[in-house]
């Protein structure tokens, strides 16, 4: 269906950003908040309207805004498509975005740069909406880099601190490494299909080689944006930004763009099964990696950051094994409960006047009951000790991984032996282990923060936050409960007459099917049982180590038992140091050396100034002949003439 109002969805926040950024400094605070919130809320309302207009088989609303540029065979339009996937994401972005805007009103009220903050935040919402709504890769790339820009600006929001400015820069540069891959991927797809539109790309037949190249390159982009190994390093540092930013950008929306992109290009990915295996393996390793580091972090936001890395890994497992619906479903549910967790941590930090260290928290349930309650609900949702939204979406991914047939015809060796049928199960096993770890570190985080006795300084008086902060917490907590309907098994859903909310049914026909066929049948309850037991085990472990009254003894026991491992976990497995040693310092040193030796010494010194000096030296030597004695000149002249005449006479 062609419409002419879809562009309002990203445009309204963009206008909001322009107003806040250009004149916000001089606007009364209330007006500014009104503009910032209203733009997102209106955008949300339009999104709801559009979403409710989606009808029929694989419906979509499309708007061609204008031809962005067209050169030769390359036609790039600024066009928006709203289908069930992007529609749902629009609702998540604007909905969660609005809640976080509301939350920020209270959170950033004291900051002198509040107008800047809302401009960036609105700009982010606009860019993110462009990303999900774009009907072609290049327009998506605007959003893709636009959210990266906003991320850069918001991480470095308090730019007076060099470390925070550095964190923003790091995020941008690492993202750019990914964007490099994405851009080349776009080129490959354009070369292969002659178009950059999703519709044409997903309809065109692709050879294995081209599809693999494109898929692998774009996965590099996804790794950058969605913080997967080996490019995840920017996300933990991104916590330098204000906490609502972490909730919106670095948990709920931007970091899931990679998952969205792969789901959007499902056709390309199923044409490249080898790359899908890589996606699944990388996702699996990232999930484990993030969870392992998360167990030993004491900064509450760092715990959540590594949790995000880990959960994003789960999503990539989902899309990697061909269960695109499961990956995107986890994307949605994760947006709810992780945003809730981050906002909760923000409320804690706000209530403790900027304290982020969990060792100086504890017993906060007394002081901030709303925060504690919502945090607990979200923790339950993410860990899955009770079947809330996270339980179902995560378990769907793991079940799909276990039973997938996506890798059945892949072989390790060219000879065709040794089919990778076992890969799915390995991923399932590691994923389940990770789920246990998730349960452990999330419960550790909850227990250390909210239970037991308060360990902070006496000068800090913890307090509950005002309603603009608690209201979004509650809404998100409720949503992370309600979102379980998305992932209910079909039989259960039918029994409860909720099948129209089922995500798999909802997105049916949106994604391409893997070549191996639909997953094998497996026992539903067995998977649920294992997942529940594992989650419970993780939670109980956390309880024994960090139960109220024991303070941080768990950490101490861990450190005593295996000090080297603990130190490595606390230091994030020394990845930053490793990259610094392997890439950063050699690059900068190489640049200095290149400049000094090649540019300054060789080219400028030897060739440029060298030739000048050669001329000067020649002139210096030649001027010895000019001694001013006219008679000598005459004599030399005579010699010259004689020689010339001689030459001419001899040669005739």
């Amino acid at each position, binding site marked *: 269906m062609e419409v002419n109002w879809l562009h309002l969805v990203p445009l309204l926040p963009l206008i909001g950003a322009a107003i806040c950024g250009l004149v916000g400094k001089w606007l009364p605070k209330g007006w500014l908040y009104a503009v910032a919130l209203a733009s997102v809320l209106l955008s949300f309302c339009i999104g709801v309207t559009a979403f409710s207009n989606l009808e029929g088989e694989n419906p979509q609303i499309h708007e061609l805004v204008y031809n962005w540029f067209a050169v030769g065979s390359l036609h790039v339009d600024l066009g928006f498509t709203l289908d069930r996937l992007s529609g749902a994401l629009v609702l998540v972005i604007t909905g969660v975005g609005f809640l976080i805007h509301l939350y920020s009103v209270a959170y950033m009220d004291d900051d002198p740069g509040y107008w800047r903050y809302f401009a960036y935040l609105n700009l982010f919402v606009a860019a993110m909406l462009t990303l999900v709504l774009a009907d072609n890769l290049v327009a998506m790339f605007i959003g893709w880099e636009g959210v990266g820009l906003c991320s850069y600006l918001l991480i470095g929001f308090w730019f007076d601190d060099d470390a925070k400015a550095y964190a923003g820069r790091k995020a941008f540069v690492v993202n750019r490494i990914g964007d490099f891959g994405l851009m080349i991927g776009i080129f490959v797809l354009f070369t292969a299909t002659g178009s950059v539109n999703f519709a044409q790309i997903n309809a065109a037949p692709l050879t294995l080689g081209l599809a693999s190249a494109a898929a692998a390159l774009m996965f590099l982009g996804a790794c950058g944006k969605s913080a997967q190994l080996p490019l995840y390093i920017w996300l933990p540092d991104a916590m330098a930004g204000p906490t609502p930013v972490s909730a919106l950008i670095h948990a709920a929306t931007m970091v899931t763009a990679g998952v969205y992109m792969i789901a959007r290009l499902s056709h390309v990915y199923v044409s490249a099964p080898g790359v899908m295996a890589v996606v699944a393996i990388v996702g699996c390793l990232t999930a484990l990696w993030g969870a392992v580091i998360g167990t030993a972090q004491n900064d509450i936001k760092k715990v959540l950051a590594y949790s995000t890395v880990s959960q994003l890994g789960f999503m990539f497992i989902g899309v990697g094994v061909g269960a695109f619906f499961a990956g995107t479903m986890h994307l949605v549910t994760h947006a709810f409960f992780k945003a809730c967790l981050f906002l909760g941590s923000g409320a804690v930090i706000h209530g403790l006047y900027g304290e982020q260290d969990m060792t100086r928290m504890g017993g906060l349930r007394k002081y901030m009951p709303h925060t504690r309650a919502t945090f607990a609900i979200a923790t339950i949702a993410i860990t899955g000790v009770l079947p809330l939204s996270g339980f179902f979406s995560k378990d769907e991914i793991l079940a799909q991984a276990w039973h997938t047939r996506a890798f059945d015809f892949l072989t390790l060796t060219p000879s065709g032996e040794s089919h990778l049928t076992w890969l799915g199960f390995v991923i399932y096993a590691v994923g389940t282990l990770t789920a246990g770890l998730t349960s452990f570190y999330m419960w550790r985080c909850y227990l250390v923060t909210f239970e037991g006795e308060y360990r902070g300084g006496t000068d800090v008086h913890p307090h509950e936050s005002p309603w603009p902060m608690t209201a979004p917490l509650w809404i998100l907590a409720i949503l992370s409960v309600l979102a379980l309907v998305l992932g209910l098994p079909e039989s259960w859903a039918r029994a409860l007459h909720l099948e129209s909310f089922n995500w798999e049914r909802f997105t049916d026909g949106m994604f391409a099917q893997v070549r191996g066929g639909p997953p094998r049948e497996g026992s539903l309850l067995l998977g649920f049982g294992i997942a529940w037991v594992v989650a419970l085990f993780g939670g109980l472990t956390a309880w024994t180590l960090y139960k109220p009254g024991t303070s941080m003894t768990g950490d101490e026991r861990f450190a005593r038992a295996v000090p080297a491992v603990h130190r490595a976990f606390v230091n994030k497995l020394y990845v930053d140091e490793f990259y610094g040693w392997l890439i950063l310092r050699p690059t900068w040193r190489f640049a200095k050396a290149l400049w000094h030796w090649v540019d300054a010494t060789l080219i400028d010194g030897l060739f440029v100034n060298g030739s000048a000096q050669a001329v000067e030296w020649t002139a210096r030597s030649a001027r010895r002949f000019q001694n001013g004695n006219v*008679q*000598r000149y*005459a*004599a*030399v002249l*005579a*010699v010259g*003439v*004689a*020689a010339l*005449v*001689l030459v001419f*006479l001899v040669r005739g």
Partner: protein
Amino acid sequence: MEAVLFYIFAIGVVVAGAQVVLRRNPIYGAVSLVACFFFLAGIYVLLSAHLIAILQVMVYAGAVMVLFVFVIMLLNLKEEELGEMHVTTMKGIGLAAVLVLVGFIAWKALTPVQFARDMAVNEQIHGFGGVKAVGNVLYRSSVLPFEVTSLLLLVAVVSAVVIAKGKI
């Protein structure tokens, strides 16, 4: 007859020219140069260049050399200021080169050249080398250089005055 006259004049030219170069005192040199010019005028007559021979005597031996002698007197150099032959390696090489050059031209360049018979020339131009013939050519084909020469002489006169006067 022509040969005898030629050799007399030629020897005179060479001896007087050598005196100019070799004599230490410039006044002797100037006098030798006058002699040289007279002998040269004789040679010119042998070449049927009557006008030029007369000009040679009048302008060179007369006017120009008087100027030289005046200047030599004016400067009135003392014995020790007269200066000596100053032979350096470079000058020696230059001189040798000039000698080689001259010898080579004489030997190599001129032998194969076929000259036209002079009888024909004399027949062709009546009064060869006389005032009328030369003047005819001068004022027909070289009027502009001729006029420019007058300008040159004017400039030379003015510049000589300006340079030599010092303060005007």
